[in-house]
């Protein structure tokens, strides 16, 4: 019910043993290293401790990681689109783990260097070739683009450029500027100019004309300036020969060759990827781990011959962590286990629930992890969350489907994803709760049995309550109970009363936890004013209803309002007193909010009924294909209803906890415990 108790470990370690200590702590993943750098700025610490720096080798590792990362990226880029088979999709397997253990960072680095050079020897040639081919391909594509515009010209492209006497240039000019071009070139070249035009083409949403311009060499500069002015797009064609058509076919030929060559090299690389990728991923991971270790030094302080290390450790692992340090240092270490020496909000929070409850921690963490000295509400969430979920979805068939979805996520996807594991576990239990609720309320795809088979589960007594009307057990003739002018003689009323009672109980638990918490911290006044008051009101309501005397409830309400007003008055005068009087509506609001259990329960059943009715109408009124339409309607309609209400139930169940329940006792906002731990996906130590 509380986050794990923490201890602080302080250790002084001989410098030559430090590496081994860090390696062993990292492998064990028991502690969270404490960053001492802020502390070491103060003069009294400064006097005998200096901040340590990351290990020397981390820079070397970073360089290696970049190199290896580049090859991994190359391998990824040549990989064929992986077709995941349905079987794999339904049953994903985590990647195979390679055994890799090194006794020092240097060893890991030299291994990585060896692998890198082995891989590089095989990969560097094809990869350089690939780059070259791809560059050539781009070049050719560019050239092809330009030469295409000149297709209709029957010239030898060898002539383009600066010759002995003439300068020939080709390019695109916008159609509107063509006459201007002709005129101005005529002017600057004194008529020694020849312009050959091609057919109009559309390029970048503009009509353009490809042209070849030949002028005397001496006018070259003037012509160039003129062309720039008119927005002439010059083609960069040089060192080629033959007519454009000939050249195009040559280019295409070469492109084809290059494409097939690229394919060759890609498949060669693909083979290399198959051979090396696993190894590289594993090495990369090892390097990552070594880097994290190297960086860990910078969190510590040091003297000439020793390191000083501080770390948070959950109390139950404190002794074990101490042992690990001492063993790793061969006794050249002094280790002390101390109580937390920091203010509450700086102590990391580790939720510590038994295994069956653990997956629900994601619900708590989604709101906010508790503060170190606060209650961990995870255990309190579980029964309410499942029950509310069940009541809001209430359909045995939907519940069964949800259980299947949950099991799939939990057992299959859960192998590769922790999130899926947790969610799957929660959904499986929620599905079971829904099945139970569905059995109680007789919901099997809504009223499917009645619509299509004429079987009435409510009259036959197979279901306890009918959310939309009467059942064999609760009906006009057979009311559940009577009080004042409220008669509980049908399903909705019974579920409404049930919802309100559950709500009051739920709030009562929340208030009680808050009350005890406040008492524990010595805030008696807060306990009584913030929680005690409402606990008293709830008790008065229970007693009042039990003995059938409503004046008790009335009196309690008046008393509570008066206390609230007094509380407000003490805080800040008349206005606050008036606002205080409104506190009671807040409480009422909390209680009534639980009425959503009924409303959403009805919404699922009602919409399922609507789907069934429409399907029945199709079945009965459309000849021949009516049956197919009806089946389609049922499939689509129920899937839709299942998804919408399944989602809605989840969030509304959460909301009841976050807003109404947590509001009574929980604040949250702790800092999560993040262990110093080697993350291993592809390797085992």
């Amino acid at each position, binding site marked *: 019910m509380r986050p794990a108790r923490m201890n602080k470990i302080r250790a002084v370690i001989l410098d030559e043993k430090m590496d081994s200590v860090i390696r062993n702590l990292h492998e064990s993943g028991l502690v969270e290293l404490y960053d001492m750098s802020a502390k070491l700025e103060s003069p009294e610490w400064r006097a005998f401790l200096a901040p340590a720096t990351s290990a020397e080798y981390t820079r070397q590792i970073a360089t290696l990681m970049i190199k290896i990362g580049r090859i991994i990226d190359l391998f990824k880029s040549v990989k064929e689109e992986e077709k995941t088979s349905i079987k794999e999709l339904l049953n994903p397997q985590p990647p195979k783990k390679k055994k890799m253990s090194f006794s020092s960072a240097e060893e890991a680095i030299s291994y990585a260097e060896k692998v890198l050079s082995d891989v590089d020897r095989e990969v560097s040639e094809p990869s350089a070739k690939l780059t070259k081919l791809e560059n050539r391909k781009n070049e050719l594509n560019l050239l092809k683009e330009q030469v295409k515009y000149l297709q209709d010209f029957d010239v030898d492209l060898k002539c383009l450029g600066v010759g002995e006497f003439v300068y020939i240039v080709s390019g695109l000019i916008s159609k509107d500027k063509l006459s201007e071009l002709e005129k101005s070139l005529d002017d600057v070249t004194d008529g020694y100019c020849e312009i050959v035009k091609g057919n109009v083409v559309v390029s970048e949403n503009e009509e353009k004309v490809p042209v070849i311009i030949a002028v005397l060499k001496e006018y070259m500069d003037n012509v160039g300036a003129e062309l720039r002015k008119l927005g002439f797009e010059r083609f960069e064609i040089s060192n080629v020969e033959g007519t454009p058509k000939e050249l195009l076919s040559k280019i295409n030929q070469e492109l084809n060759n290059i494409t097939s060559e690229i394919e060759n090299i890609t498949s060669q690389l693909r083979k290399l990827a198959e051979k090396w990728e696993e190894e590289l991923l594993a090495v990369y991971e090892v390097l990552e781990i070594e880097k994290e270790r190297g960086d860990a030094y910078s969190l510590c302080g040091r003297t000439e011959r020793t390191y000083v290390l501080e770390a948070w450790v959950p109390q139950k692992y404190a002794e074990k962590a101490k042992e690990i340090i001492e063993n790793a240092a061969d006794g050249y270490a002094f280790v002390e286990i101390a109580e937390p020496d920091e203010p509450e909000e700086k102590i990391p929070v580790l939720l510590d629930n038994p295994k069956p409850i653990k997956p629900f921690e994601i619900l708590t963490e*989604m*709101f*906010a992890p508790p503060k170190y000295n606060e209650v961990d509400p995870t255990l309190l969430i579980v029964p309410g969350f499942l029950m509310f979920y069940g009541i809001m979805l209430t359909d045995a068939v939907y519940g069964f489907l949800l259980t299947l979805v949950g099991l799939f996520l939990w057992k299959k996807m859960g192998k590769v994803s922790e999130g899926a594991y947790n969610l799957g576990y929660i959904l499986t239990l929620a599905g079971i709760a829904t099945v139970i609720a569905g059995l109680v309320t007789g919901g099997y795809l809504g009223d499917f049995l009645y619509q299509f088979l004429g079987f009435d589960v409510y009259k036959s007594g197979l279901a306890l309550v009918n959310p*939309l*009307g009467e059942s064999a057990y609760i009906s006009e003739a057979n009311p559940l109970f009577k009080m004042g*002018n*409220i008669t509980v003689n*049908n399903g*909705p*009323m019974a579920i*409404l009363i049930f919802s309100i009672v559950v709500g009051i109980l739920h709030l009562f638990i929340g208030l009680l936890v808050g009350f005890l918490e406040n008492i524990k911290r010595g805030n008696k006044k807060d306990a009584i004013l913030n929680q005690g008051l409402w606990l008293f009101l709830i008790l008065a309501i229970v007693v009042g209803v039990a003995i059938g005397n409503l004046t008790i409830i009335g009196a309690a309400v008046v008393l509570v309002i008066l206390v609230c007003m007094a509380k407000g008055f003490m805080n800040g005068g008349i206005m606050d007193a008036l606002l205080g009087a409104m506190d009671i*509506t*807040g409480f*009422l*609001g909390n209680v*009534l*909010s639980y*009425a*959503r259990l*009924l*409303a*959403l329960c*009805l*919404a699922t059943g*009602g*919409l399922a*009924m*609507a789907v069934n*009715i429409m399907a029945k109408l199709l079945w009965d009124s459309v000849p021949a294909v009516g049956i197919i339409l009806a089946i389609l309607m049922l499939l689509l309609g129920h899937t839709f209803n299942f998804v*919408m209400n399944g*989602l*809605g139930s989840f*969030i*509304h169940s*959460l*909301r009841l906890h*976050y*807003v109404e329940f*947590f*509001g009574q006792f*929980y*604040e*949250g*906002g702790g800092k999560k415990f993040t262990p110093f731990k080697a993350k291993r996906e592809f390797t085992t130590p």
Partner: protein
Amino acid sequence: MVFENPLILGAIGAGLAVGIAGLGSGIGAGITGASGAGVVAEDPNKFGTAIVFQALPQTQGLYGFLVAILILFVFTSAPAWAMLAAGIGTGLAGLSAIGQGIASAAGLGAVAEDDSIFGKAMVFSVLPETQAIYGLLVAILLLVGVFSGPGVQEIAALGAGLAVGFAGLSGIGQGITAAGAIGATARDPDAMGKGLVLAVMPETFAIFGLLIAILIMLGIMF
């Protein structure tokens, strides 16, 4: 009197339930959809997320549809005014979808930036649905004749529908607050608790409406 035939009031009620709630859902889903289109343009992988958020403001329309079907079902047994009241209550309260659309749009925007905030954004986005749920609740209570205070058979029932319906418009305000709270939570995850408290405030008025509706149905007049 025009309303002698109970079917007329029932039909109007069914129409209003689907019509007004559909209007609200349409606007709400439109607001979220606009945000969704922007998000998907940035990152096509977010399509699924966009759909989930856009589904939220559509539930109001579903509730309207559900109540309309129910009205058609109880034509012969339910009091005529209760049918009209159920329709108006669900319909008006369904306009809370506008607020939900605003909140969902903000939630989607936040999730587009940071996936890990999905659950929180979802909780905030679903807050303005409470109003619609209260509308649905009152409608069903009216239709199944649970509360049989003296006025419920007659025009007083309309009061219950109007109370829960108009008070349900507080959902628009709640949506705006929730949108702001999502932004705050996206910047600072610890702000969720306080953001929830602020975002739940506008719900008070929906609760007033629900309370008055229940009192009317019970026939309690002080």
